[in-house]
């Protein structure tokens, strides 16, 4: 009896539900290792952007999907991460690689400050406070020229690791993708433990969470901190990838894209976040390639084709929501169950 229960517990707690899924994951990771060997720098650029999007969206999913606090501040957090890493690297001369986690921590601290209104604000009202944070950060990025370089922004020299310069898509890949994988693992783990459960409890029933002994405000702040940590790291990686950051790199549309990723991927699903990030980063790329190819044959139509791109994008989003309101992760679950 005891053993049975113990076994059951082990099975419940594992990240992988079967040997097969573990094997599949491992082989996928091995394949990922070899992308830079075969992929062109265009492909790598897209994959790198996906990796960054995964980290950022993962952060947002902690806050919005799991804790139920809708945030439009993700772009701002990414900006904070990007600027603080770059500023640190430039000012102190510390290797950029080490500035990335520090930037994450700085962003986490500021994220907590942004989270303070969550003490009193709920739902869309809180979302608006985070939107306010976005515009305030944007204002500072433009005006605090001594740190941010104003509208001209900052240019970062490429970091080096053990003599290797991370100056190409190929090399940056080995920084971004492992970070993304570690982030996925970390977040999956969080949701097997009490911290993750506390987040979900707060989302589902705040008062009853408080009565269970969960310090609601503290955990909301933790959620903000954790979420902005990942966004900050994503921002720092983005700085590393593009090597020039300006206020225009972090428009509100990035925050909205992050939201779209987690909703289309599946709220409170880690795997869904990955799918969402892939989908929303690759889709515009795909649509652009398609319309460019078409425009080659019908040059007169290029204007209309360009609009068509946006039309298809919007339609896909709507259709997705209609036919799979629980996101890609639900489709994934179903296909997985079939095997």
């Amino acid at each position: 009896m005891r053993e049975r229960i113990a076994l059951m517990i082990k099975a419940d707690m594992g990240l992988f539900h079967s040997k097969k899924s573990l094997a599949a994951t491992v082989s996928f990771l091995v394949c990922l290792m070899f992308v830079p060997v075969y992929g062109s720098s265009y492909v790598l650029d897209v994959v790198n952007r996906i990796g960054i999007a995964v980290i950022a969206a993962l952060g947002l999913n902690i806050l919005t999907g799991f804790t139920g606090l809708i945030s439009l501040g993700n772009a701002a957090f990414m900006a904070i991460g990007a600027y603080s890493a770059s500023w640190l690297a430039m000012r102190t001369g510390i290797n950029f690689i080490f500035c990335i986690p520090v930037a994450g921590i700085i962003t986490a601290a500021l994220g907590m400050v942004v989270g303070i209104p969550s003490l009193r604000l709920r739902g869309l009202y809180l979302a608006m406070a985070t939107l306010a944070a976005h515009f305030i950060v944007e204002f500072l990025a433009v005006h605090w020229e001594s740190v941010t370089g104003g509208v001209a922004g900052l240019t970062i020299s490429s970091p080096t690791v053990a003599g290797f310069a991370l100056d190409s898509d190929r090399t940056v890949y080995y920084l971004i993708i492992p970070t993304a994988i570690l982030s996925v693992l970390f977040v999956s783990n969080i949701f097997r433990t009490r911290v993750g459960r506390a987040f979900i409890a707060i989302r589902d029933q705040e008062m009853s969470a408080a009565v269970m002994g969960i310090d609601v405000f503290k955990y909301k702040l933790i959620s903000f901190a954790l979420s902005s940590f990942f966004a900050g790291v994503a921002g720092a990686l983005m700085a590393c990838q593009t090597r020039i950051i300006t206020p225009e790199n972090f428009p509100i549309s990035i925050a909205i894209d992050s939201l779209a990723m987690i909703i289309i991927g599946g709220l409170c699903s880690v795997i869904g976040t990955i799918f969402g990030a892939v989908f929303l980063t690759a889709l515009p790329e795909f649509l652009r390639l398609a319309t460019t190819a078409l425009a080659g044959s019908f040059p007169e139509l290029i204007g209309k084709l360009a609009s068509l791109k946006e039309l298809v994008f919007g339609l896909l989003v709507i259709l997705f929501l209609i036919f799979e309101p629980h996101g890609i992760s639900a489709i994934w679950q179903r296909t997985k169950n079939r095997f």
Partner: protein
Amino acid sequence: AADTVKVGGLFDLTGATAEVGKPFLEGVRDAVTWMNNNGGVNGKKIELISVDYGYKTPEAVAAYKKFVEQDKVVMIEGWGSGDTEALKDQVTKDRIPYFSAGFTAHMNNPAKTPYNFFLGASYSDQVRAFLQFVKKDFKEKGKKPKVCFIYPNNGFGKSPIEAGKLYAKEIGIDVVDDQITPPTGFQDATTQLLNMQKQGADYAFIQNTVKWSAIILKDAKKLGLKTKFFLNNYGMTEQLPELAKEAAEGVYGMATTVPYGTNVPGMKKITDMHAKNHPKDSHNLFYVRGWTYALTWGEGLRIADKNKQLNGEGVKKALESMNNFDLGGLVQPVTYSGADHRSSTKSVVYVIKGGKLVKVEDIDVPRKKEWLGL
């Protein structure tokens, strides 16, 4: 195939600058067709691969990588300041000449950005020309003229301001005020104008695109301001009188390309192509600008090909060998050199009269060395 020359084109057809991006693209494309019909690049056809990047920098970067790796283009017709800035190191590394339709002065210093080009007087030189005009125009004795700059808070907006302030000081003009508008999406500039009025500015230079300039002018008209307004080469277009209506009357502005249909030798082929390809579209000087860009780098490609150096570096060299290359009056004659990518420092001042753009005068700004990149 060996008998084509590939050129990548990044255009904005759906993003924030689509309304100027579209006629520009059409101009470039018609010019390419025209060149191909008229001998091409010494018999080789130019293949323009155009991509709409929606004014989103990451998409521009991705498209650029595809151009270089998969399409193997020899040069790129770029567009805005975001993509240009983001790619400036990359193009230097890859040796890909990169034309942009932004006129920021810091792109014309080959010591820093050897592969970046644009065509026409920089924003800074336009402001200098404006200041020269003010100096001449201001008649009140014993007083210094007061000027104000109105610009949006972004790279494009700020680009000429420092240069402008320095030059104003140099020639004895007071800059009384900066008025900052949002980059996009405002419908009211009253507070900025009221503040400007308080400072008593005699002249104002609006560094903005036509639709936002029109809003500012309308509000100025509503407030009954006496200030004389000047626009840059994205504000002074055929659209201004349509949008700002009476408020546009008497407003001055700079043009780097002649308005569509102007009676200059180079215009005929343009109006012909237009009648053939877009009989219904109404066109403006951005369409002409597209032409001038394509004709210029088309010439570059031709020279490079003649030198048997049809690659990025060769095209750059070819462009830098151009001296007073004349496009039939469509744009000031083009001169590039290895040390200076200012194609011209001359601006043409227009004024709106009876809803039309009327040429006032040419203003040449000295080609000073220390102004390179500023």
